């Protein structure tokens, strides 16, 4: 992109960069139309400025206004983690637990994925790694029953944070979305202010389908924020620009690996700089 002047080729190159970063056709066109106007009116002549303008615009879209992330605002502060299969929910819970614990908070994990083979064992191992308790029942039991017990246990054991793991599910499967709503209702009946956060986990290597995931999970369950995992690969995760634009959901954290401390707060500017 080290060109001297702005021409069609440069715009084509930018289109390619944005689309190959998974921003999608629509968002890419919207962004390029904005700068194209300025180019036509001769307000934008320098390729470097053009790039800066695009970055600014993307950063602006990603800087979604939202209520503060405040895990100390309730006790226990209940966080439900949801998403489609294999995006990194359970691993992210391990990382979040580690972070909260190092901030001096008392954390409890809840194995409400009772469906996937060895999901309970996987979460239990994360519990051991971080050294925090895990509430569980045997595989195949009702996830809302697990959540029900966990809410009581969290109160009686004076927990600050409850992290609720759920089974991966396709956003298009009605019965599985109903199951998730039931978990949410049970938690809410125990504490009318809970769950305090419902975080949707998205895999950075996912393309346009992430928008459909975010739409449906938001509509059905009421997502409060996003976590974008697997940014340590070569995928850019550009679909969150479209998601932020349409759904106004803040990205709370990004995942950059499989270890305990591979979790970072989301920084819109840094994210944008990694795009181009």
């Amino acid at each position, binding site marked *: 992109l080290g060109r001297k002047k702005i021409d069609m080729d440069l715009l084509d190159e930018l289109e390619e960069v944005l689309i190959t970063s998974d921003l999608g056709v629509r968002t890419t066109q919207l962004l390029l139309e904005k700068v194209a106007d300025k180019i036509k009116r001769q307000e934008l002549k320098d390729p470097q400025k053009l790039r800066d303008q695009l970055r600014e615009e993307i950063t602006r879209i990603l800087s979604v206004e939202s209520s503060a992330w405040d895990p100390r605002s309730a006790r226990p502060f209940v966080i439900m983690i949801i998403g489609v299969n294999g995006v990194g929910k359970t691993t992210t819970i391990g990382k979040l637990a580690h972070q909260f614990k190092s901030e001096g908070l008392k954390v409890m994990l809840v194995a409400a994925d009772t469906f996937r083979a060895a999901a309970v064992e996987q979460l239990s191992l994360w519990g051991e790694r971080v050294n925090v308790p895990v509430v569980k029942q045997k595989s195949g039991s009702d996830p809302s029953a697990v959540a029900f017990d966990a809410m009581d246990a969290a109160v009686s054991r004076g927990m600050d944070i409850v992290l609720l793991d759920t089974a991966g599910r396709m956003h298009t499967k009605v019965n599985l979305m109903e199951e998730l709503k039931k978990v949410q209702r049970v938690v809410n009946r125990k504490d009318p202010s809970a769950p305090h956060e419902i975080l949707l986990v998205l895999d950075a290597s996912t393309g346009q389908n992430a928008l459909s995931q975010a739409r449906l999970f938001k509509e059905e369950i009421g997502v409060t924020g996003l976590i974008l995992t697997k940014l340590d*690969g070569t*995928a850019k995760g550009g679909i969150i620009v479209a998601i932020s634009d349409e759904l106004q959901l803040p990205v709370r954290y990004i995942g950059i690996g499989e270890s305990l401390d591979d979790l970072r707060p989301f920084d819109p500017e840094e994210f944008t700089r990694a795009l181009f």
Partner: protein
Amino acid sequence: MFDNLSDKFQRIFKNLRGQGKLTEENIREALREVRMALLEADVHYKVAKDFVTGIAERAVGQEVMTSLTPGQQVIKIVNEALTDLMGGQSEPLRLIGKPPVCLLMVGLQGSGKTTTTAKLARKLVQEHRKPCLVPADVYRPAAIEQLVTLAGQINLPVYPSTVRQKPEEIAREAQGYAREHNCDTLIVDTAGRLHIDTELMGELGRLKEILQPAEILLVADAMTGQDAVQVASAFHETLGLSGVILTKLDGDARGGAALSIRAVTRCPIKFIGLGEKLDALEVFHPDRMSSRILGM
């Protein structure tokens, strides 16, 4: 909702009745729509571009057949070209060689390898083979337990790996174990890894060396975006893939990754995953995938 491609084509070609030739001009407009549909389906930017260029050459100047409207005719050309590009017809597993014949499952984290390992085993049992499952993921918490649990659901032998072993050691010992248990097929589940992780990619190279697999199958998530091209080509360069399995097609992803992966590796997509249960594995049909990608 949005128009589908057929409606759009109807509009583009409304003035061109069933006579004359397809011209460059009306083809160009139609192909712009095809390109958009491909990109919206997550087909890689360059793959989509090359595809559309190829179609233009194929379509311009063709006589408009009287049996079809021009729009239908272009759709037919596009659909056929897409189907061809994805291999034309479905391809079976090639389980040749001295038993135990080995299948090596590889891919990114969370793509569906472990689940697909069990699904494939179930399919092979139906074909009267005797598979043995081999957990060679010693990194992910409870990965071995996951495969052991799945194997239990279909009553199949599993090599008893432990996390204290190295994957290479597991691979070596599993072959003897399979023979002792009269198994004719080994399906080896490996840990998810990034294509840019040279250390772990090297490990896969060593597993290949030890196991001499008849099939090296890339398990890829159908929801993958533009990155599918880089991932597939890196795995292919390191290992020489023999086939691809595309998972999670039970959602609403259009699955353009299928085209990207096929275009860069030339490897056949052999199966698709359509759910979490072990019977949710089907043979891949290029023509169905083509319609799905085009959103028709």
